[in-house]
């Protein structure tokens, strides 16, 4: 097993909170008609981020934005490489995506392969008017022509570094750290 050696904290709990507030505002700058917007979080941490954004929206506008959950395991392009690991988790989108603006939410944007898989899976659920991508961290090193519409923070990294987003709901703490796999 490789271990994670922490090098620096790049976002604190307070910074994560403010970043999500800013991203929420940006969603509505881009989409004045809030009735069209739906959120879809990518398992696992994207789901928690999407829920927080949903709560922020509700707090300021009293609007309940529908939220879906996407597990991209069955759409991965490396299923034959990753070995007997893939855990298939819940996918749940129980509203119609047609003509909606889907804001896809993930924690870290890296190679772009997860987003490719997520886009393929989304299209099997319907035909959205538009799909936008929101990520808390963009760490670069794209392997596909994919970019995010809303970025919490750009963090230039080297390839052997990793970025860990830790969230209260699963990790017991809100922080983003950069480290190295050893």
């Amino acid at each position: 097993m490789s271990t994670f050696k922490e090098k620096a904290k790049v976002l604190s709990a307070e910074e994560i909170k403010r970043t999500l507030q800013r991203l929420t505002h940006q969603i509505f700058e881009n989409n004045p008609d809030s009735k069209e917007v739906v959120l879809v979080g990518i398992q696992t941490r994207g789901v928690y981020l999407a829920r927080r954004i949903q709560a922020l929206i509700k707090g300021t506008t009293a609007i309940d934005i529908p939220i879906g959950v996407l597990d991209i395991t069955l759409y991965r392009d490396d299923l034959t490489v990753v070995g007997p690991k893939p855990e298939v988790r819940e996918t749940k989108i129980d509203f119609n995506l047609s003509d909606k603006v889907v804001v896809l939410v993930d924690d870290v944007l890296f190679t772009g392969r997860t987003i490719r898989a997520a886009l393929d899976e989304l299209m099997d659920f319907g035909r959205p008017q538009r799909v936008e991508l929101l990520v808390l961290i963009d760490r670069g090193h794209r392997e596909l022509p994919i970019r995010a519409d809303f970025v919490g923070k750009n963090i230039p990294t080297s390839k052997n570094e990793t970025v860990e987003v830790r969230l209260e709901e699963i990790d017991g703490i809100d922080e983003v750290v950069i480290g190295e796999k050893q």
Partner: protein
Amino acid sequence: MKWKRKDLLGLEDLSREEIELILETARSFKEVSKREIKKVPALRGKTLVNLFYEPSTRTRISFELAAKRLSLDVINIATETSSVRKGETLIDTGKNIEALRVDVIVMRHSSSGAAAILSRHVRASVVNAGDGWHEHPTQALLDMFTLKERLGKLDGLHVSIVGDISHSRVARSNIWGLTKLGAQVTVCAPKMLIPLAIEQAGVRVTYSLEDALRNADAVNVLRMQFERDEIGAFPKQLEYFKNYGITQERLAQAKKNILVMHPGPINRGIEIASDVADGPQSVILEQVTNGIAVRMAVLFLVAQANEYIKR
């Protein structure tokens, strides 16, 4: 928990954790069949052969649908119309199928242990769809999945299996699986249809249906397989229904929310009354629906593991 087996031959060999992993994975797969596009690309480019030495409609179709929803390509071989008729052995048939670069073989065979033998001679994954009187693991898994979905857990449940236990691979797989997951299993049948020493598998035996139903959370009713009665050991159909048939009157003495299950095909008026089969306690058609999700989970797990083993 990681799945590491290339095959699924039975539930006897599996650990509690492995069975739980299949059931958990199946839960995620159930959602796929509810989508508008009921298909995921997970096993695209792989091929599955349904090799059936015994007639089957629902199991074969269920495997075929499960495979197609995972984007597997499927070939069906019914041995009545194949070279098996010309005297080809099981292992030769298996090796020929493998030479066609097939990734998964789903097999039903009249001999106990046939799937295990085949699995040792081919690198493809082998999934047992029923071998003689031995095991029918995916049927038991879908029964357990249905129980868990309906009742929330398996630990501590009282499940009675009623019918020809001796000749039933469904009963054997259910007994292995349910006891491993902490359920209390009772088997109930006329004496000549209960195998000797079955208590050693950790089940309670009763010859009284009333007794079997008394505390049961669910009753799994087996089909009376009259075609298997070679020596005239079976009771007559009417006599069986009178003593062991599941009727509304008998269920009225049981727990109010008892679930009635049946692996199908049902014989109305023999092991189960028509109004029970269609009644509110029956989950027989849910079992059929859940069978697809469970088989998708099994195919996905064995194909994944085998990909890794072959590397």
